[in-house]
């Protein structure tokens, strides 16, 4: 079973957000993933981010493909409509849903198999269309549900639990998203809630396709010595490029940042994302620099995390399409049908 209803436990004094909702109100069914799965930490981060942003659950649509990662939309926001599509095809369903209902906040949960192999094309095109979706890749380098095959993000040289070695090159979704003309490319680690929650919030507010690659170790098939996506390996090779925090425009959240340069970037909805550069040279607005930075880190076997590229000015899917502000499903039929007279008129040219 991948869906077990979870009893909602409430208690006096539970903190509420601006809507008067508690964290519990943003939870979903009980996870049926393996205990300790990184994906469950991401789910918890999502719950917190939605709660902190005080979004109405029913304003959200959550979509996924197939795989362990794609089960997780059942585990958060039970008040939102969810769509567990077919393998690798979450982006197309999100595109259609966004076409119809641009007012809804779309969150797509995918995995490395789902987005970098079977769904690589759809991932690429959602990015280049700059579809307004928070696109999370729960990346563990391995196929969990089919018991431990390498995925396309597995690093060359890493070893499977059964001992064989991956000799193919790894696809880096962050570098890929940047080269595809993506507008928001970030990486985080499932165990780093302090970084992940603000990134998710920033992604949810981003007016375009926000790709967050979350390294999420598979406790069952990819958490052994020889795996480059294990907890131990990732923690010891983590290199935070940037810390990001989402800040409500109306009420600034006090944050305790490390020393370094601070850049505020205003988002289209008036909210602000604050970037903290660990590396003074780092500039999130430069594609070439981001790619070079990623490449250099890869050579050092470091996992760069943080917001690596951001361009808030790239036109989004609906801007390009020129779609009406009002969601298409909200137009009355009378506003869509030209009527009998128009039909008669246009047929004059067909005679």
């Amino acid at each position, binding site marked *: *079973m*991948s*869906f077990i*209803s979870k009893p909602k436990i409430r208690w006096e004094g539970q903190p509420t957000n601006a809507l008067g909702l508690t964290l519990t109100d943003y939870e979903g069914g009980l996870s049926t993933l393996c205990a300790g799965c990184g994906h469950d930490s991401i789910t918890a981060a999502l719950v917190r981010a939605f709660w902190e942003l005080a979004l109405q*659950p*029913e*304003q959200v*649509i959550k*979509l996924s493909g197939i795989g362990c990662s794609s089960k997780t*939309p*059942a585990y958060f926001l*039970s*008040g*939102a*409509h*969810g*769509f*567990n*599509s*077919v393998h690798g*095809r979450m*982006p*197309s*369903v*999100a*595109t*259609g*849903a966004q*076409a*119809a*209902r641009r*007012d*809804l906040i779309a969150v797509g949960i995918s995995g490395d198999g789902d987005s970098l192999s079977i769904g690589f*094309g*759809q991932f*690429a*095109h959602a990015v280049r269309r700059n579809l307004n979706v928070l696109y999370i890749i729960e990346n563990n380098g391995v196929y969990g549900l089919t018991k431990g095959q390498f995925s396309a993000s597995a690093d060359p040289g890493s070893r499977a639990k059964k001992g064989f070695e991956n000799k193919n090159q790894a696809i880096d979704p962050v570098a890929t998203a940047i080269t595809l003309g993506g507008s928001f490319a970030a990486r985080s680690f499932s165990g780093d809630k302090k970084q992940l929650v603000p990134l998710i919030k920033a992604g949810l507010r981003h007016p375009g396709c926000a790709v967050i690659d979350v390294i999420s170790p598979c406790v069952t098939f990819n958490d052994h010595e020889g795996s480059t996506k294990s907890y131990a390996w990732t923690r010891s090779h983590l290199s935070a490029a940037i810390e990001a925090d989402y800040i409500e425009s109306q009420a600034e959240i006090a944050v305790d940042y490390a020393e370094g340069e601070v850049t505020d970037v205003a988002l289209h909805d008036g909210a602000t994302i604050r970037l903290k550069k660990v590396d003074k040279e780092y500039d999130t607005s430069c594609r070439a620099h981001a790619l070079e930075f990623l490449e250099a880190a890869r050579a050092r076997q470091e996992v760069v995390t943080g917001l690596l590229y951001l361009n808030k000015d790239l036109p989004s899917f*609906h801007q390009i*399409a*020129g*779609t*009406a*502000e009002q969601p*298409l*499903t909200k*137009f009355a*039929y009378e*506003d*869509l*049908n*030209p*009527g*009998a007279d*128009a*039909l*008669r008129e*246009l*047929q004059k040219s*067909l*005679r």
Partner: protein
Amino acid sequence: MTIFRPRINDFVLKIATVNGTGSASANGLLMKALFRMGIPVTGKNLFPSNIQGLPTWYEIRASKDGYNARVERVDVMVAMNAQTYAKDLAEVGHGGFLIYDSTWPRDAQLSRDGVTVLGIPLAKLVNENFEGSRVRTLMKNIAYVGALCALMEIDLDIVKGLLEETFAAKPKLVEPNFKAVKLGYEFARAQFDCPLPVRCEKMDGTTGKILIEGNAAAALGCLYAGATVGAWYPITPSTSLMDAFEGFCRTFRRDPETGENRYCIIQAEDELAAAGMALGAGWAGARSFTPTSGPGISLMSEFIGFGYYTEIPAVFFDIQRVGPSTGMPTRTQQCDLMLAAYASHGDTRHPVLLPADPKECFEMAPVAFDLAERLQTPVFVLSDLDIGMNDWMVDQLTWDENYRPDRGKVLDDAALAEVEKFHRYFDHDGDGIPYRSLPGSDRKGSYFVRGSGHNQFGGYTEDAAEYQQVVDRLKLKWETARSLAPEAIERKARGRTDIGIIAFGSSHGATIEALDRLGEDGIELDYLRLRAFPFGDEVQRFIDSHRIVFVLEQNRDAQMRGLLMLELDADPNKLVSILHYDGLPVPTNSVTEAVAVHLRQEAVA
């Protein structure tokens, strides 16, 4: 010149040219001129899968009796392509004419008993009067229109009027075009005994009619049905459907003040994505569709099965072309019937609508959207290249202002407030159709769409009984679909007969004409035209009440006959196939011959 029996307003005029030489506008001009003279016409474009250089033909059938099927007889051939002279000459019927460009005389090569060859030095005439190679190429086409005006008495004033309409935005082009018409016209008048016995005469056969392609009509249908999201991947012969939809939307769905679009058209990265987009939009509450052809349906099958099992509405237009595989992209067949009916793995069945002409493409589009939303399932409209891309004369399209979309069983927030608990896949009404809620509605209506096993409440299941309950309910829904799908239409023979024929889609024209011809020979058949799958009870009754039922279809493997056998209690021995699958529209004579041969053999046996 041999004298033959005159053929007035009853002929086939075929023009053989080279792709990319601009002959389409000249051929369109001819079609419309005949139409404006009041003569019923049909145009069939037999074109290569190529942009420039390969042979292409345009076949115009004028029929004072209003028949629109292809006939395998050419009365006047305009042979503009030296590559195909031999083939073109061979197609001309006894007593017919072949016109060719005699700038390079080929009289010896182009000689055949019973065919009159008329050489017109089109290139020479045009070269002497026009400058520039592009203009000369185009004007050569216009010049053969002029020659045909003289030879076949096509009204010159009408041709001039059409040129004026065509070039309304560039009036300077009217004069040179008409000059080219006159060049051909005057040469023919001076050199030949005009008119030919094959010729036109004004009549009143096109009042209340229009000329339209099926894809444009289907696009209009989507517009009028209130479709707002269209996703597609370019593929011949369906591309013009989305092109037309976009054109209509620019005119009728763009806010005049803000310039905002009340539609969203997405060119997808492939057909898999196009299907996912259509379903995503359908799930979110929009009327959404995707136009494609057979190869696209193969790719979309994954999502079609998903849509069936998760019960999401979307409309799939399949403009069929010749398969298998890439096949012949610019030729026509009815070869996706089985594919559409049962697309995707597992037990799946989909409603399929079968329009017979562009008018039905228009009318069936709203029906398809209504069915998709009423039944909460993917619905196919199975057109084909012949219907979709050829010019058909049909009755003027009309729109019923009282039409309102049937959105099916959707619970809005008010309705959700009334229910104790929302269960997505629960059959409240006993018709197999559950209630759905749309994304963005009240939290009470939230549910998780999943293609994996689910129970009637929408929860994941691997429980044997729970799984089966849902698929059995889907089967019950299929029974409901049988009562909602458009009924087959019967055309009774003049007298009582125990012989029937079943046909559908673009075979309709050939069937009607064949039945008339057979009737003249004393062979009477009742005719049932299928308009949808699943079949209604009338189809079973028709088969039961006839001794022999011919099943005419445009594929090799008798897919419709197979469907009838699978879905009905039909005796295979009485279902006699007539199959046409060479990629060209089915000609009338192949139907009459097949029926006559079978009945003759039966009489002997």
